[in-house]
């Protein structure tokens, strides 16, 4: 405990999630005295590797590393601090009738694979990836940009607005319309413009629903699809990868980078309150009662937890509080982490196919996913869920003992609130059984290989990680909550109504995924406000 008494930090970051750590790293590198406070006994928030069962390492929340901005990895020297990212070899969608569609890196193998289902779709895939890539190219430079406030007349905002307009303008008339349509369409309609075959559409629709309370037929879901594609690994846009050692390797490298820059992290230190005096944040009070002072406080918690729990309402305008209450953070995803006694077999996947080392999905059609969404709307977990599985131990030997495997199972949809009543252990087991049964229908030996299964509902994720409703993006990625609307209009620039209190979590632009951009953008805003100049 601080013997020095009332030492005043330059910056306190509340929450050692990846964005909080990214922000802290940048600020520590700029020479500020930074302290990160974390409620859990481990850092990382939702980017963690945990040993919950013997020698198995679970990436028990986020499980794929694709969005982390290369600029951040490089500036913060994450590879030097142990981060290694290995790209996927492909992926596969399994149908309930025993058929499958695999995705291969090799262009020709992929074309012939899609052509098994439809030759035309195989060729339309080229147009599809071109169009997705065009949109990625348009969006990517915006990720590490602070969104302008369109209602403001400040030169900076007008300049940024012009930048945005120019970027749009430069693509030419037809592509501008394409962009407008793309940002507002449903994934189902978007995919209909390319593909005929249900399985092909369903495969690509998968990423349009992951983590979101939208169905593939909801307008705006095409953007979510893109959101999952806009990462790049070693210049391959849209590539997904594993972090060697699990997702905790990302947080671990960030924490090491922070330590090397002189920043500090205190785990097991839950913040009870952000202290405000005269409209200015002056520090935090821990649950233990201890108070810590800082000139700047950055909250990496989502906006609801920050302003509905940690800041006393008297410091906040009522209108802002209303906007915070109306911010949509919806739990829609569940997660199973499973220790396996061996590699399960999937008869749908041909022997020797490398796609088993990629992401494995179970779905047949957009309609099946849409029905899964209907269940969620009615407060039930999906009877036939969309499942995104991964067995990283096939590639990363650190994840499980030799011959054994760790399987990450992401499940869409699972509600935060059940219509039937509160989440109980029995209901959690029932939810887990639904998912395990769905997998077992694809893999006859799967059940017999299960050594241990951790079942996580949105309710569990909220309780453990602190994400409101267990929403993986800290807020829905819908048009009303993107760009200058994220998290709430008027406060999209990482500042808050409380002076020297900033937000750095995924609830800010450009949103969720282990991207780090919100943290970096928040750090840039803080440095600018402190007159410390530009981001390194």
């Amino acid at each position, binding site marked *: 405990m601080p013997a020095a008494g009332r030492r005043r930090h330059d910056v306190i970051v509340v929450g050692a999630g990846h964005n909080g750590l990214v922000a802290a790293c940048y600020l520590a590198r700029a020479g500020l005295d930074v302290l990160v406070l974390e409620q859990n006994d481990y850092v990382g928030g939702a980017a963690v590797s945990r040993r919950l069962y013997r020698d198995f390492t679970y990436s028990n929340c986020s499980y794929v590393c694709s969005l982390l901005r290369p600029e951040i990895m490089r500036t913060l020297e994450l590879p030097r601090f142990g981060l290694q990212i290995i790209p996927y070899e492909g992926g596969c969608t399994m149908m309930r009738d025993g058929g499958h569609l695999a995705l291969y890196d090799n*262009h020709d193998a992929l074309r012939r694979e899609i052509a098994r289902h439809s030759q035309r779709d195989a060729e339309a895939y080229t147009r599809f990836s071109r169009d997705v890539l065009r949109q990625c190219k348009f969006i990517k430079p915006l990720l590490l940009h602070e969104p302008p406030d369109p209602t403001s007349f400040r030169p900076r905002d007008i300049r940024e607005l012009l930048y945005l307009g120019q970027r749009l303008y430069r693509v030419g008339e037809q592509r501008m319309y394409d962009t407008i349509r793309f940002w507002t369409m449903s994934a189902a309609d978007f995919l209909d413009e390319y593909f005929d075959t249900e399985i092909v559409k369903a495969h690509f629709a998968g990423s349009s629903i992951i983590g979101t309370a939208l169905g593939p037929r909801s307008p705006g879901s095409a953007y979510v699809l893109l959101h999952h594609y806009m990462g790049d690994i070693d210049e391959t846009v849209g590539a997904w990868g594993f972090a060697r050692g699990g997702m905790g390797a990302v947080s671990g490298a960030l924490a090491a980078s922070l330590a090397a820059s002189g920043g500090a992290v205190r785990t097991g230190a839950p913040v009870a309150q952000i202290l405000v005096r005269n409209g200015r944040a002056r520090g935090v009070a821990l649950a233990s009662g201890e108070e810590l002072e800082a000139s700047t406080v950055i909250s990496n918690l989502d906006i609801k937890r920050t302003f509905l729990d940690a800041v006393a309402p008297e410091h906040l305008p009522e209108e802002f509080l209303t906007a915070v209450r109306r911010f949509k953070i919806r739990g829609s995803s569940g997660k199973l982490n499973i220790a396996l006694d061996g590699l399960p077999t999937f008869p749908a996947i041909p022997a020797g196919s490398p796609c088993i080392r990629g992401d494995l999905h179970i779905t047949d059609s957009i309609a099946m996913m849409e029905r899964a969404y209907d269940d969620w709307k009615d407060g039930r977990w999906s009877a036939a869920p969309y499942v995104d599985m991964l067995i990283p131990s096939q590639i990363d030997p650190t994840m499980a003992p030799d011959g054994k495997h760790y399987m990450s199972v992401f499940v869409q949809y699972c509600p935060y609130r059940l219509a039937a009543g509160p989440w109980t252990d029995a209901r959690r087991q029932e939810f887990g059984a639904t998912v395990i049964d769905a997998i077992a229908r694809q893999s006859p030996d799967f059940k017999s290989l299960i050594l241990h299964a951790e079942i996580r509902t949105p309710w569990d994720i909220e309780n453990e990680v602190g994400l409101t409703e267990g929403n993986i993006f800290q807020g829905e990625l819908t048009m009303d909550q993107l760009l200058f609307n994220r998290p709430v209009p008027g406060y999209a620039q990482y500042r808050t109504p409380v002076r020297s209190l900033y937000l750095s979590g995924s609830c800010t632009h450009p949103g969720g995924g282990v991207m780090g951009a919100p943290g970096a953008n928040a750090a840039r805003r803080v440095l600018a406000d402190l007159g410390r100049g530009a981001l390194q």
Partner: protein
Amino acid sequence: MRAEPLPLHHFRKPLLETPFDARTRALQQNDQFVAWAGYTTVDVFTSVEQEYFAIRNAVTLYDLTPMVKYRVSGPDAERYLNRLVTRDVRRLKVGRVSYVVWCNDSGHIIDDGTVFRFGAQDFRVCTAERQLDWFSDSALGFDVEIEEVTEAIAALAVQGPTSCCVLKRFGLSGIERLKPFELGEFVVRGRPLLASRTGFTGDLGYELWMRPADALTAWDELMAAGQSRGIRAIGSQALNLARIEAGFLLPNVDFVSAEHTVRVGRDRSPLELGLGWLVDFDKPHFNGRRALLAERQRGPRRQLVGLDVGGNKPAHHALLYADAGGRREVGSVTSAAWSPTCKRNIALAMVEAPCFAPGHAVWADIYLNRELVWERRMVRAQVVERPFFAPERRRLTPPADR
């Protein structure tokens, strides 16, 4: 359960083998293969130089099977193709072939290829890349059937000054009467075979189209027939050298298909590529017509030209400048080669206005690797007429025997 197992070996062996694979693989000496439209093909058999000179001096065999082939048939086939490509397909007679390009709405090239006319309602379109997506979408509203027949047809290019003579000896009697861009149907020892007087070398030459089952026999018989005339198999590199001399364009090298470009401003129109002669504004509407009309009025902003480059080092990928100091960039080289036949250092380049006219001088920024040390040369280059090499024999009917 499915009736028969689906072919699932593509993830182990993504590339297909052509029906000539057994022969080409046996003849090649360098293990230099290249993937082409989903097939494995030989890049270099023995040496590029020897293979190249066989094209210009003797006769060569080139495995053309990966060329993507579509059968286009039905009552609206002519109307469909006429809307698809920029040339007037109505004027293409039965038994003839036409070189064509097709554009998107904005008048930018999607691909080039050849159209074969077999009958009033029966065509074949050969393309560099797969086109089913665009061709199918273009078929909306037309009574036409489009079927990819790439795997059903084995194709072989027989090119070089002695090609006609060798084909006669092979059994194509009357082949000498085939005029450029004409088709002829033959039966060789009971095996049907289609020959077209077409090619990608700018020299005398033919392309043979046959059943895959007949491929190896045809290869062997051709090799035997050509033995005394210096026949040899050639790979893609030698062909590439010949096609640059002939001034032919290669997709993904000299232009990128407008269906593939991601960046703004990378699309190319036929007017920009110097293919304005392929655009027939007097025929009924075709894809891109309105945009091309507007472009013709405006005048193209850039143009593909032939360059005669100083020195003898090919100007691969060189940036072009208006001045020797390299201050104003005016374009870049898309294809470059030392032409062994013309004894000139030639290149195809995309240049901005107003560098189009023959005689206009630009400067090429050439990087040379000399024993691992890179050197930079600013070399003067002059815009010249294409093609660089166009021998009379390519047009002569009947062709000479040697």
